[in-house]
């Protein structure tokens, strides 16, 4: 009715995030279940401690990767829904004016979970392509007999069906809360400004005011910019140590997931900021503000969030690996000591600065190309 299947195709970010989450979780959970099945056959003391360490690793990785990505997916899903309602407020307003209830309209938002289903399904399938190699690497030291890859329907239920149903429910409930606006406001596209924002203190100039207003109006994007920097920082630094701590394969997997997540969330966030400020940017350009002024007003506010995200990611990967090495693998011999690697940190930081600032300059060019006529065509 409101949301069509075509609309869900735009939620590629949600599909990518769920894909990554399910790949990681299914690899480790499938391995965990199969490993549990051979528990009684593992008797050698070294093999037992290795077994315990791998069981623990599976639990930690599933909880952290699955938990973080599931949370980020929820935020992204909510962001998409809010963005959809804002950009289709007139159509929704017409439906409400015709007598459609909020509940009836909100039900159509459950279709957004189709992107979750597609991401989960592809992730589930793709994990089986990696599974054999993963199992071999987990047992590279031949601590126990080769484990046969089992197919566990309960994992399909847990990682594909349950998330799809849950996200459909989240989409309905969240959209219901966002649709609770007067019909006339939706029809006229009136933006309600929160009380807190009304009393913001005066800043030096208009560009600073605009920057602050853009940040406040799209708080979710602050999270996503920070999240993309966090993914980039943590996963790239983590992957650099995987050849010593696990395997090259694991390093490549973490690196790929980190890069895909970082670039997807970053692209979605920045494109969304530009899209929602298209008219404001065009108006600024009409008045004579340069593309650089517009970039300062619309994009520069996110820089702090990006660098904080980077710092948090660096700390996260350090403490996670430290815990894994010192607690999970404490009984295993030959596990190298893990210290904060400043060399990798500074190289990652330099690459991050280059990519972040370079991308911002590219977006400045994009701002320059925003047609001033665009606002007159409405």
């Amino acid at each position, binding site marked *: 009715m409101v949301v069509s299947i075509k609309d869900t195709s735009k939620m590629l970010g949600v599909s990518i995030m769920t894909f990554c989450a399910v790949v990681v979780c299914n690899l480790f959970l499938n391995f965990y279940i199969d490993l549990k099945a051979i528990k009684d056959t593992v008797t050698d003391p070294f093999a037992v401690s290795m077994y315990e360490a791998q069981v623990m690793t599976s639990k930690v990785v599933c909880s952290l990767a699955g938990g973080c990505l599931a949370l980020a997916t929820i935020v992204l899903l909510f962001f998409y829904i809010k963005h959809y309602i804002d950009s289709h407020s007139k159509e929704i307003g017409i439906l409400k004016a015709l007598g459609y209830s909020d509940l009836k309209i909100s039900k159509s938002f459950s279709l957004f979970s189709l992107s979750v289903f597609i991401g989960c399904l592809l992730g589930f399938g793709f994990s089986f392509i990696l599974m054999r190699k993963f199992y071999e690497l987990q047992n590279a030291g031949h601590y126990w007999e080769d484990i046969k890859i089992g197919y566990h329907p309960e994992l399909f239920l847990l990682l594909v069906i349950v998330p799809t149903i849950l996200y459909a429910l989240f989409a309905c409930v969240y959209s219901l809360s966002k649709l609770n606006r007067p019909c006339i406001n939706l029809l006229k596209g009136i933006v309600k400004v929160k009380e807190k924002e009304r009393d913001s203190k005066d800043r030096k100039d208009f560009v600073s005011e605009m920057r602050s207003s853009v940040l406040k109006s799209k708080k979710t994007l602050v999270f996503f910019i920070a999240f993309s920097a966090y993914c980039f920082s943590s996963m790239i630094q983590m992957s650099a140590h995987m050849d010593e701590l696990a395997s090259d394969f694991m390093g490549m997997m973490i690196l790929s997931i980190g890069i895909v997540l970082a670039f997807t969330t970053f692209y979605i966030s920045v494109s969304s900021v530009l899209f929602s400020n298209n008219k404001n940017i065009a*108006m600024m350009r009409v008045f004579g503000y340069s593309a650089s002024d517009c970039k300062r007003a619309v994009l520069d506010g996110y820089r702090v969030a990006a660098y904080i995200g980077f710092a948090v990611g660096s700390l996260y990967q350090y403490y996670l690996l430290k815990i894994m090495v010192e607690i999970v693998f404490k009984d295993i011999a030959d596990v190298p000591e893990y210290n904060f690697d400043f060399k990798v940190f500074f190289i990652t930081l330099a690459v991050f600065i280059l990519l972040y600032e370079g991308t911002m300059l590219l977006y400045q060019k994009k701002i320059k190309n925003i047609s001033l006529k665009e606002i007159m065509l409405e």
Partner: protein
Amino acid sequence: MIEVKDLTKYYGDKEGRFKALDNVSVSIKDGDFIVILGASGSGKSTFLNVISGLETIDAGSVSFDGHELSKMSEKELTKFRKDNTAYIFQQYYLLPHLNVEKNVRMGADLAGTKDFSSYLEAVGLKEKAKKFPSQLSGGEQQRVAIARALAKKPKVLFLDEPTGALDEKTGRAVLDYIIKLKEKLNFTMIMVTHNENIAQTADRIIKMNSGKIVDVSENAYKKDAYEIGW
């Protein structure tokens, strides 16, 4: 002084290409109040966009105080708009997340105007400085747009159907504000409208049809916003 010579502008590609402006020539003196009158599709808005440096041209020339707009780079055009022009649209285009005062500051900052509250006072909205666009009526929003444009201290003010979205009472009030402020500050004003009554407030009326100027007339019987029909 704005000098337009043999101006031609096309829209569309090969098959659907059509002439939006056809060999248009006109000159506008400093301090003039010009109304460009024409029906929908006559090319009046395109003409306004071109002479204000918002759109490129395909042939002819547009010069502003002797500087040719079509030869300016994007950077120079930005500076040209910053130093010389301001725009008022039918749809106001206020920034929804900024209050009235901060919207006016958008124009004021470019001209280095510190006392932007005087512009709010001029349009009778000083008490609503902390309100947001969504809390104002259409007429009030357009007055904020006027204050924002004037705080920029433009040499030329371009207006595209500024009262088009307003009812008669509010429309007259807004038009009255604009005309009085123009008389007080003596900037050049170029307004596009399809309303022949509104055209009666101008010094000169340029009539357009099918992308051509069909008539240019001095308005000997200039009226104010409350004397015209609606």
